[in-house]
């Protein structure tokens, strides 16, 4: 039985028994593009697929769909959902749980053992056997850290490369002025389309600080200083919360290397606190009190 078939069977079981109202997974869209799928009907489970182009971090949809009843604006459309989660995606679930976006019992996590997603996934007809995305080349996780059902067997970790880490080292070797030029060059192209923010599972403020009507933290203009404020501010807000899916970088239309900003902060937290986001449902160390790390 292929992994796609296993996922469909599980989805069928969960929907038919009424355990969940919606299964969030992947489907084949137009032009050979894999895309998120929301299945509520048992007859529709055949849409669900699993392949090496399943790049989307589906957990980004969870806070919106699963608003817990204790929140004043009422529950989301679903009380309980099933979600197909890769190892990286599953860590985002822990981040959500730590922040009480929803409760554990509202999810049935269909974890998938993953050997990596290919470059070009999400865009038209990626080479299904092509090179892995940069984040996947460095990844040694093969099974989700949290799941209810596990689909597939953990493939062995063969070779590990870290193109992002290499780029980080290059930047760290530059002077401050060199780094500033690097980043300003990239931010200049930014359109403030907010695709990076919208695709991110950890970005779910009702009103983004950088989109306030009163321009409190940065102006509205699509200009260099404002764009830098948005990117650096967003990166800071993700400290200890970003799980490194790098979807932000994938969706950026102008190829800004956003993953480097997030990696800067995750490396700093690993260095200072030995902390890695999403390994357990605990909050980011930046938001807690000191406990022995004084100085």
């Amino acid at each position, binding site marked *: 039985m292929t992994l796609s078939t296993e996922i469909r069977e599980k989805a069928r079981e969960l929907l038919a028994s009424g355990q969940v109202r919606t299964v969030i997974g992947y489907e084949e869209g137009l032009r050979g593009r894999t895309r998120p799928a929301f299945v509520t009907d048992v007859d529709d489970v055949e849409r669900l697929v699993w392949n090496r182009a399943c790049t989307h971090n589906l957990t980004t949809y969870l806070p919106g769909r699963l608003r817990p009843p204790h929140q004043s604006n009422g529950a989301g459309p679903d009380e309980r959902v099933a979600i197909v989660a890769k190892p990286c995606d599953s860590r985002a679930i822990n981040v959500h749980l730590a922040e009480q976006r929803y409760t554990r019992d509202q999810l049935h996590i269909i974890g998938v053992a993953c050997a990596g997603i290919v470059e070009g996934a999400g865009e038209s007809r990626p080479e299904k056997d092509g090179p892995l995305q940069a984040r996947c080349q460095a990844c040694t996780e093969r099974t989700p850290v949290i799941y209810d059902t596990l689909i597939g067997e953990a493939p062995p970790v063969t070779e590990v490369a870290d193109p992002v880490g290499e780029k980080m080292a290059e930047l760290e070797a530059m002077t401050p002025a060199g780094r500033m*030029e690097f980043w300003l060059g990239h931010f200049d192209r930014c359109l403030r389309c907010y695709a990076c923010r919208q695709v991110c599972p950890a970005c779910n403020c009702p009103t983004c600080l950088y989109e306030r009507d009163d321009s409190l933290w940065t102006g509205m203009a699509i*200009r260099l*200083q404002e764009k830098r404020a948005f990117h650096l501010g967003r990166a800071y807000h993700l400290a200890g919360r970003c799980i490194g899916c790098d979807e932000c970088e994938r969706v950026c239309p102008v190829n800004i290397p956003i993953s480097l900003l997030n990696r800067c902060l995750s490396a700093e937290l690993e260095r200072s606190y030995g902390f890695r986001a999403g390994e357990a449902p605990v909050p980011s160390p930046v938001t807690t009190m*000191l406990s022995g790390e004084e100085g």
Partner: protein
Amino acid sequence: MMFEPRIIGFLCTWCSYTGADLAGTSRLQSPWNLRAVRVPCSGRVSPELIMRAFDEGADGVLVLGCHIGECHYDNGNHRTAKRMPPLHALLAFAGLEPERLRLDWVSASEGERFARIVSEFTEAVRELGPCRWRRAGPALPRPELAPAPAERGG
């Protein structure tokens, strides 16, 4: 002409601001470059505030809070202690010289310590020269304010 850095100092009401007052009343010399912004607690100093200060043209930002264990609000300064290293790392990564941002602890009775830290910091920033962080937008014309209308009545 010597470069006079513009330093924004976030001083917490209960400790460092009072320490600054003490430095003043003790007639201790410290550079005038520091523009003091009084906050209830150093924990109020959010990263956005610091980034905004640099965006508006500060050459240096100094955040002074109570010593750990002495915060008037118990653990407000814990938050500051935890926030600053990641912010420092991020700003340095984006091209800001790390010496332009400093976090330190000054109690209400440490007037001398206040004066010393401010002097040290000002000189360190002076040595770096004007900060190139701020990116001005396009040069725009400033309209002349129209002359005031004539007074009505007699």
